[in-house]
């Protein structure tokens, strides 16, 4: 899971050559250029970085923080952590993880590392630290490649092809992963359908039934960390207005209608606060647009124009505050990552949202309280989870998506005959 999923630009690059027969290789088709496998990469190599590097903190299945590289970790404040490295943890060349490796990885996310005896103090300089540690991955430069503590090491990395191999061989598991750059999403899917690659992810949910029934492929679906939301612009819509609107609308029914099969709820008798029409912007995708239109209908007279945005326009509109309500997706799991969007100086806080109560909750490390405050202040209405959809070689028995990193569970995938 990388913080900049929208920055990958598709490029016309040929897919990789096929692997030698007889040995199972997971060949993933990924749209766009790949580039080097390094922490903080803005390219579509993030699928590889998830397998090569491990972050200082990561969420377990329940969303609680855990660490695979630290023997102990202790929250010292909203922006400070103290960790003790687990001496058993090794980089992929077998050498132990050292302070410099941790400091190097933390620095990528703007987190400073300081020695504290055998421990390390990590300081995010006033920003909520947990989300940043989710993205901070210790690594070491070693010639052409970078070494991480993840289950795979880099064998080859380039703009069109990345090859990884398992550090510790495990019978019945995936020993080798190739990531092939394809011209675009369509090309990636087409190549997988043709059998040139045997894994693709990031599909639209509506395509699942299209992929279903393809010989040799199995559709995999699962929840991810993103949620469809309606987000009010606090700079243009007052807190009172937001709260009244949020309290008036049948959000669950709207979400069921737009994200599932529910009927559009009747909204004629609902009381809405007076005010000017709210302009709504939405990602130009089927589900967000339906959500936006459903919201507008529910808003009746308060519903203004619905503007459909692509990624580039989205960033501009958000930064310029040119919207009243945004309908799109938000990184919302585990709860501490909400700080990226709703704490002062957060990495994704494009609207410069600020709330003392929410900041205080994040500072306390009480992400649940922060989320409750976000909902109470009607900054965001969480509507429906965004599902991850992909298709993988049917010989893989237990393919599933990680709730956090899309391929977090890949090392445990079992390959059948």
């Amino acid at each position, binding site marked *: 899971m990388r913080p900049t999923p929208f920055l990958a630009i598709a490029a016309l690059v040929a897919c990789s050559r096929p692997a030698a027969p007889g040995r199972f290789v997971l060949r993933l088709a990924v749209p766009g250029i790949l580039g080097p496998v390094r922490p903080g990469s803005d390219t579509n190599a993030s699928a590889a970085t998830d397998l090569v590097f491990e972050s200082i903190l990561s969420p377990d299945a329940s969303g609680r923080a855990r660490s695979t590289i630290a023997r102990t970790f202790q929250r010292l404040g909203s922006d400070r952590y103290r960790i003790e490295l687990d001496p058993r943890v090794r980089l992929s060349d077998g050498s132990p993880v050292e302070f410099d490796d941790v400091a190097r990885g933390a620095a990528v996310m703007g987190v400073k590392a300081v020695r504290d005896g055998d421990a390390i103090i990590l300081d995010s300089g006033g920003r909520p630290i947990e989300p940043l540690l989710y993205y901070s991955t210790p690594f070491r430069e070693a010639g052409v490649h970078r070494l991480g503590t993840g289950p795979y090491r880099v064998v080859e990395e380039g703009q069109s092809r990345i090859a990884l191999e398992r550090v510790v061989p495990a019978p019945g598991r995936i020993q080798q992963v190739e990531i092939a750059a394809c011209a675009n999403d*369509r090309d990636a899917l087409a190549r997988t*359908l043709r059998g040139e690659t045997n894994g693709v992810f990031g599909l*639209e949910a509506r395509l699942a039934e299209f992929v279903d029934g*393809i010989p040799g492929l199995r559709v995999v679906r699962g929840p991810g960390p993103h949620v469809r939301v309606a987000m009010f612009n606090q700079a243009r819509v007052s807190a009172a207005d937001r709260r009244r609107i949020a309290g008036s609308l049948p959000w669950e029914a709207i979400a069921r209608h737009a994200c599932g099969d529910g009927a559009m709820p009747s909204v004629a008798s609902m009381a809405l606060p007076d005010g000017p029409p709210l302009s709504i912007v939405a990602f130009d995708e089927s589900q967000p*647009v*339906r959500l936006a239109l459903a919201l507008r209908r529910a808003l009746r007279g308060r519903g203004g124009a619905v503007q459909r945005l692509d990624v580039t326009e989205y960033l501009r509109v958000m930064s310029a505050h040119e919207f009243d309500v945004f309908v799109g997706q938000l990184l919302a799991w585990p709860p501490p990552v909400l700080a990226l969007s709703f704490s002062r100086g957060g990495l994704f806080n494009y609207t410069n949202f600020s709330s003392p109560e929410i900041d205080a909750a994040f500072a306390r490390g009480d992400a649940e309280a922060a989320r409750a405050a976000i909902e109470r202040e009607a900054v965001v209405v969480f509507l429906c989870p965004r599902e991850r959809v992909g298709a993988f070689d049917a010989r893989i028995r237990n393919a599933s998506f990680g709730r956090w990193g899309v391929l977090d569970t890949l090392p445990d995938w079992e390959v059948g005959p």
Partner: protein
Amino acid sequence: MNRRAMATRLAVMVALSGLLPILVVGAIAIEVLRRHSEGEAANGLRAVAEQTAARIDGYLAAQKETLRAVAAAASTSPDADRRLEEVVLEAPALGRVVLVGAATPRSDLPAMLGAEVVARARAGEEISSAIYLAKDFTPALDHCVPAPARPDHAVCASLDLLELWRFVQRIRVGRSGYALAFDAQGRLIASGAGALRAAILTGEPVPESGVAVAVAAGRDPGAPRYAGAGGVEVIGGWARLPEAGWTVVVEQPAIEALRPARTAQWVLGAIALVALGLSIAVGVRQSQRVLAELEVEERWRTAGRIAAGITHDLGHRVAILQQTAGLAESGDAGFLPRIRDNLRSEVATLRKFVADFADLSRDVRSLDLLPLDLDAFAGSVARTAASHAERHGVRIEVLPSEHGAWVRGDRYLLERAVLNLVSNACEASPRGGAVRIAVTEVEGQASVAVEDEGSGIDPERLPRLFDAFMSTKRTGAHVGMGLANVKRIVDAHGGTVSVESALGRGATFRIALASEAPPAPAAAPRTRTSPGAA
């Protein structure tokens, strides 16, 4: 050939001759069944294709009708733009619906319809785009209808055709039959065959594209059996959507569609094989039994013929010996010369009799093959037979070959054979006549011909002349084994024996053997005998 092999051969011949007509009729029946099945399968698939096409056509018509209704209901409303935009909430399949006027910016027009085309819709004509893949790769089609009561306006929708995929993907014929849908250009737009779906995304042609183009153009696409995806032979049926110009092809692997005919084929084949096996088994058993009975019968017949010959010949000899004994008992010394001559003659005759039987009992399968100069051999035979010839007042002439003739043979056995022929020739020729032994070598075949000047052989006897015990001479020690023995010996050498005869002009017996190159002169000096040597 032993009795078992002969029985098997007989049984196989009988079984095959009996089964062959059945197999031919069965094969014809199978072919008829196969063609009928193919036709039936194609008809069935065509029916499915027509149903599918009708369903898709109906779906498209329903969406367009909905759009017309929406246009009629909403286009007059003051907030028509908003109402139309929200139509998708109730009618998701209509996709994005917009009211289009002359001032509508290009960015708000349907993705696949240009301003000029939409202008026709504003002027009152319904228009559609070609089917295309939307941004999320699902199929879509832009359609515009005139906006009633709103002059110079049209209502356009980007119809969501995901349902088209569902229709097509759900169709299953048998275990692995599927449906495909093509646009008018033969581009695959929906596929029930998972292996072909990549072509929907890439637009690349599939094997059935040619069929689809022909159907869309109203041409005959040809036989319903063709090579489908992956080169698999399929049987297909197709139908055209008249309005959209699309084609639905429903196909099924031929091996599956024709399975009943194939099963019948296998069953018939299996029955034929079992019947054949059974016939052969029963035939062999019965043939062995019959052959055994025939053999026993033949033995008795042979024994009878031998007994008849022996009885006749030995009876004559016994009569002479009894007569001679009577002369001896008379005590008359004057009979002594006659008694001596009789005894000598009868002893010689009995020796010949015994020799013939000895030849008959001799095993000719183990031959002592050596190079043999036929010219010298003929001379030798002539010398051996000279006394016999003299007794009959006949002279023997040897006609050697022009350039020599060598064969590989058992000299003793061949001599017995040729002597037999020469002896017969001497007996057949009139006194003062001649018997000729001619040796020739022509194109790898050497022959020894024995020619007499007798009265010739009755043509009716010629076909069975070399059969054992078929002699009719009965004039001496002839029980009919001589020529049979000759044939046996020549056969054992891989050669042939033949006879040419005409009544009143004598007979010529010819033994033909494969010739070979003479050995080195030192090893086998060649000798020649002069013609007429006796």
